[in-house]
């Protein structure tokens, strides 16, 4: 049995990685729950953001890069939404189309940055604090901070503002909402653009904290989708909570057994949920 310090550190790192799952899941959950689009390309987009941050890290501070990349991604998200609505792609076909898009982005990344693993050298990663026996790094805290602020912010907007009310009404019944004067088309573009901009933020966190390689795009898919499913579609806080549950479970699994078994954790949790609480879906 590992020591209490190791377990504590595991739980902590699980929370941090879980918050990244939540951050990645947020955009996915929004476009899935509200626009009926399952956007697999969200992961490729986040990695593209990570690679761009990595590429410019010699010259630009990662946050300056984000200020450029996030608006660009916002436009890309709107472009994708235009494409999917223009050709009225059905929900299941959005899976296929964005799967194709993922292939294209992945090939582009591999062509430019090769299939090798990359890790961004940056000043942030060197900043660490010792809290009692545990270590906390700045990129970890930044990830958690982004995840909390964006998830809670999205929740608050949906819950308390007129804009949020309009979005929720559109989610429930778009034609009726439109009949009551909601500009549902514009809202669709807004949600899609914001989801993609969140992918840029997630990309920054990926670059700060993790190694980048084209194959990893797919490795993150399974875990984050599990978080979205467990958290509930279109609910902004759900993926974060579920992501942290998954992250902590994974970290504990790695501490107690062999680290290579971690990819099984999220899948097992999702299967267990399907077996014992099928009514949730």
């Amino acid at each position, binding site marked *: 049995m590992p020591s209490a310090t190791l377990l504590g550190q595991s739980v902590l790192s699980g929370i941090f990685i879980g918050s990244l799952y939540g951050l990645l899941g947020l955009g996915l959950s929004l476009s899935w729950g509200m626009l009926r689009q399952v956007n697999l390309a969200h992961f490729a987009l986040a990695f593209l953001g990570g690679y761009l941050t990595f590429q410019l890290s010699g010259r630009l501070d990662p946050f300056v890069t984000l200020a450029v990349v996030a608006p660009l991604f916002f436009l890309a998200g709107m472009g994708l939404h235009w494409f999917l609505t223009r050709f009225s792609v059905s929900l299941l076909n959005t899976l296929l189309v964005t799967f*194709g898009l993922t292939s294209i982005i992945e090939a582009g990344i591999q062509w430019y940055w090769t299939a090798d693993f990359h890790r961004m050298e940056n000043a942030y990663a060197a900043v660490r604090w010792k809290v009692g026996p545990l270590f906390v790094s700045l990129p970890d805290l930044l990830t958690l901070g982004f995840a909390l602020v964006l998830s809670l912010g999205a929740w608050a907007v949906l819950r308390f503002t007129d804009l949020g009310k309009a979005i929720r009404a559109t989610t429930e019944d778009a034609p009726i909402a439109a009949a009551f004067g909601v500009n549902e088309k514009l809202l669709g573009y807004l949600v899609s653009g914001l989801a993609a901009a969140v992918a840029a933020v997630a990309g920054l966190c990926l670059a700060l904290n993790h190694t980048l390689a084209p194959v990893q795009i797919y490795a993150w898919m399974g875990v984050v989708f599990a978080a979205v499913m467990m958290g509930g579609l279109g609910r902004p806080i759900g993926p974060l909570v579920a992501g942290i549950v998954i992250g902590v479970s994974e970290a504990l699994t790695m501490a107690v057994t062999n680290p290579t078994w971690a990819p099984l954790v999220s899948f097992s949790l999702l299967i267990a949920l399907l077996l014992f609480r099928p009514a949730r879906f």
Partner: protein
Amino acid sequence: MRIALAVIAAALIGLPYLGLPAFYESFGYLLLSAIVLATSWNVLSGYSGYFSFGHGAFFGVGVYTTAALAGKLGWNFLWTLPLAALAATVLGVALGAIVFRVRSLRGELFALLTLAITFVLATIALNAVDGGPGIMVTVDMPKIAPTASGVIYLMMLAAAALTLWTAYAMYHSRFGTGLFAIHDDEDVAEVMGVPTYRFKLAAFAISCALAGLAGGIHAIFVSYVTVAETFSIALAVNVVLMSALGGTRHWLGPAVGAIAITVLLYAFTSGNAAVVGRALTGLILIVVIVAMPEGILGQILKRFRDRAPARAQVARPFGNVNNVNTSGEPLLVVRGVAKAFKGVQALASVDLEVRRGEILGLVGPNGSGKSTLINVVSGHHVADAGSILFEGEELVGRPAHRIARAGIARTYQIPRPFPQLTVLQNVALPPMFGQVVMDRARAEEEAWRWLAFTGLDAKAHRFPADLNLHERKFLELARALASRPKLLFLDEVLSGLTPAEMDDALRLIRAIRDQGATIVFVEHVMRAVMELTDRVAVLTYGKAIAEGVPAEVMRHPEVVSAYLGAAHV
């Protein structure tokens, strides 16, 4: 046609004996394995609409089963092939048994779980079987062809023949028709008698078995097995692309796509070109989904179909189908049935009796629970409490398809035809899954009669989208009638029809009763209710408040107040 097939078969079998360079056998092998994988993917995903992104996983299970048993333990590899298929099947059925039970999000959940399983299996294979470096698979080949690559080629040829035959047989059977109905509208398919859960599971099992078999053969072809090469997402993308490109709604479509894509990808095999190939597959996938949803074969067949004249078929008149039995004994007895949705009590203890041979009018204000009652009796929703006896047998808790098989049919207020099946196929579906199970040919014959009966025979080869509302309502009727139900629920068949069309419909309903069906007629049009029904039952707030002869029931004070409000004098 037969001769052409025989020539092709002879040429394919003869290839290894011609002494050509090994390249031809290897390339032939690649084409054949692509055909097996794409076609096996399609018998589940194309037919039933459940997209699997995990075909690489099931293929990989086959690869590793053979690699472990033949490579590590030294078994005779021919024996490992059925086990490779079995292992993939067991995995698929276990996954399917869990995910196919879910009622909403099932398509998305299935897609994502199959995507995830690829990584799960890669993890297991890496940790438990492989150990890291990979497995050498060197086996003794049976000497049925001059070279080893020739033998492997012949094995994959046999697998391809088996796969195509399976896809063909499924396509032309009840099974395939049921899967296509699931693709279009699973809930309606179930209510029409299709055992959806079992069908999905069986299709998934077949799909996995064939992929596992191909994997087993592939282990010998590559002779050195590694996790990274085996469990790849690229395989899943390619298989999806091949099927979509060729056409998912035809048994031969994926094979056409498999050949096209394999030849195309062959041009991009090495180095940076492989990356270009991947980008290209992604691009083609998007273009095909958006611009050519029917695929190459679908497009060709459509042109062919458009030129073909509508089949002139004289519908035979009905024999004396069922003797009209107006004995008045109860056919359906509903006692204390309740159903709530998230706190809304849609049905609060309903009692109702339907007598054999009658037309019972079921009326009540909007939201009184009429449609919910139909949904509960037909098994779409399960009652929270109460009992429903049909010919003395309890229906509560039975799956919808078994209730359909017992002889209960319904129409939908807003028609819900299967949009991608022709009018004829729509009507031919219920007889295949009714009280008397018919094969496809007999079911179509039966369907022609009901199309003639409802005046839709001229549109038999059209799709539902080409019909107007009046015709779609009649399609609903024809489809419900084609299974020759003992009890038929008509849910507001008259709404939205013009007076003249309404008279048509009323004539039709009388004709239906004269053939022996008992009818529950849910309607708001009071003229029709008074004219047509033998008895009337009134529902309000999920309760039956009156039951009896129309003229009397309509004078019942509670009924008057339910419709017009209480009198304040």
